[in-house]
């Protein structure tokens, strides 16, 4: 008797390859890595740019993390929770994964919010509370814009120091948006070469930044950041 052929779709309803879904549910590290890479952009956008929510009948706005460290902390915590066995089993594979993941990310943020409310309870009759509570004070501001412009200037100055070949690589990668593989094809190089050159250029940019900051009087253009952080640290 001829064996019945197996029927297995290349993709599951949620859009993942079927093998990825199976591996995800089993906790296979390779599958988890694939899921991370497929979805990290969506969660990053939420954590970077914020969202609105209601608490105790009031409207609030989380404006997003500007600090790279805080954003990465929240991102890490989101995926760490999402990859726990119970969370993996709770995902049915039929519905899209992004909303599920974004819900976890929101909860990560809101846990911080609730902790802050406990630390700073409102006095009875206090009518001064704003309608929107800002969890992270990084709303666009003149200072924020100035810092961004300053950094763009530093990067432009760095780019001006590079030879044409390096500028071409960076243009392909970050202006035209090519992947490393496509950039490698375009330049007739191997992907590993592109990866290595890119890492060296990133390090060169950091070296340029360190020299710039060391050359600035007391690092005055950015020292406000560390000082503010130190003050915040002292107040913890």
């Amino acid at each position, binding site marked *: 008797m001829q064996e*019945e*052929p*197996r*029927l*297995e*779709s*290349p*993709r*599951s*309803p*949620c859009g993942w390859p079927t093998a990825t*879904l199976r591996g995800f*549910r089993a906790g296979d*590290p390779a599958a*988890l*890595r694939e899921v*991370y890479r*497929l*979805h990290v*952009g*969506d969660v*990053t956008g939420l954590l*970077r740019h914020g969202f609105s929510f209601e608490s105790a009948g009031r409207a609030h706005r989380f404006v997003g993390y500007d*600090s*790279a460290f805080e*954003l990465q902390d929240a991102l*890490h915590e989101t*995926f*760490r929770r999402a*990859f726990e066995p119970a969370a993996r*089993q709770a995902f*049915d*594979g*039929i519905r*899209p*994964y*992004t909303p599920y993941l974004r819900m976890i990310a929101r909860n990560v943020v809101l846990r911080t919010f609730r902790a802050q409310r406990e630390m700073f309870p409102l006095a009875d009759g206090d009518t001064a509370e704003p309608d929107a509570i800002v969890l992270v004070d990084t709303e666009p501001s003149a200072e924020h814009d100035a*810092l961004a412009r300053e*950094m*763009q200037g530093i*990067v432009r100055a760095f780019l001006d120091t590079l030879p044409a070949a390096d500028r071409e690589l960076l243009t392909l*990668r*970050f*202006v035209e*948006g090519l*992947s490393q*593989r496509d950039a490698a094809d375009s330049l007739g190089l191997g992907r590993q070469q592109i*990866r290595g050159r*890119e*890492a060296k250029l*990133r*390090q060169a*940019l*950091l070296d340029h*930044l360190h020299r710039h*900051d060391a050359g600035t009087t007391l690092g005055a253009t*950015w020292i406000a950041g*560390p000082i503010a*952080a*130190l003050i915040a640290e002292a107040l913890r």
Partner: protein
Amino acid sequence: MRAGRRRGLDRALTGTIEPGEVRGLIAALREDAAARASYDRGARAMRALERRSVAQTELDWVERRLEADGLLDAGAGDRAPGRAWSWARGWWIGASVLAAAAAVLALRPPAPGDGGDGLLAPRGAADPRAGWLALSVLCDPTGRGDVPLAEVAGGSCPGDGTLAFAVRVDARHRGAEHLVVFGIDARGDVQYYLPTPDVAAPVVARRDVWTSLDRAVRLPVNHAAGRVRVFAALLPHPASIDDVDAAAAVLATSSTRRDDETPWLDRLGPAHPLLADCGVAECLGAELEFRVEPRASRDARSPAEAAEAGQQ
């Protein structure tokens, strides 16, 4: 800041950090506000370099942290992947919620170049549009929506199960958008999935995402045990029930062998009423089959009650 710590921060920012360094660096960042500020400033530089609100190296760094947690296999990933992998491959992210509480078996015609997967016939392999319309048939084996998704080997759904459907249309498709999905069961009976006599067929306007069809079909109601062939198409006009009947009459006698390379729309012939205006707006088709297993339990309801439930 100590030079060693600064070098560690730089390695994190350039994507060259070693797995063994990750935990120590995270601890240092938590304890040292100046280190955090320096790290944030470096990340700003990477963002400005990449012209993005979050740099790729930041996402890679989180990946390293998940490796350090033991959730990802250390060293298996690219140390500095291009941004295209996450953004360009996001085409399918956001597939809509499947209304049916179905689970499990996903069946789809093989995409061009796929090796085939058993019962699915690799039809029209020479057609450059082969695979542009992809169909998934989902099986909730209990029919209660209370089981998690699990792959079912053998390409079958229990006779007590429930079917649900999803489709995906390739982004290159610029033609017809009115969907029709129907089946022919082992008795040769037509199974109207979309449209039905009561439910109009949807327009599928989205591209490169799986779109759930708001339709659940209880197998105990109408489906006989045995093979079911499922046909889907995008047409220029909404298909009528009469058109579906006419198409099923042709297809009921046609071959479905694996080596049949003729797409089902072509088997109908160009003059078939279902294909009206397909010469004006490009039509797409997809086909698959599965088996309905004999029922494990007998439904106590009357056929009329069961039929009513089946139309939900």
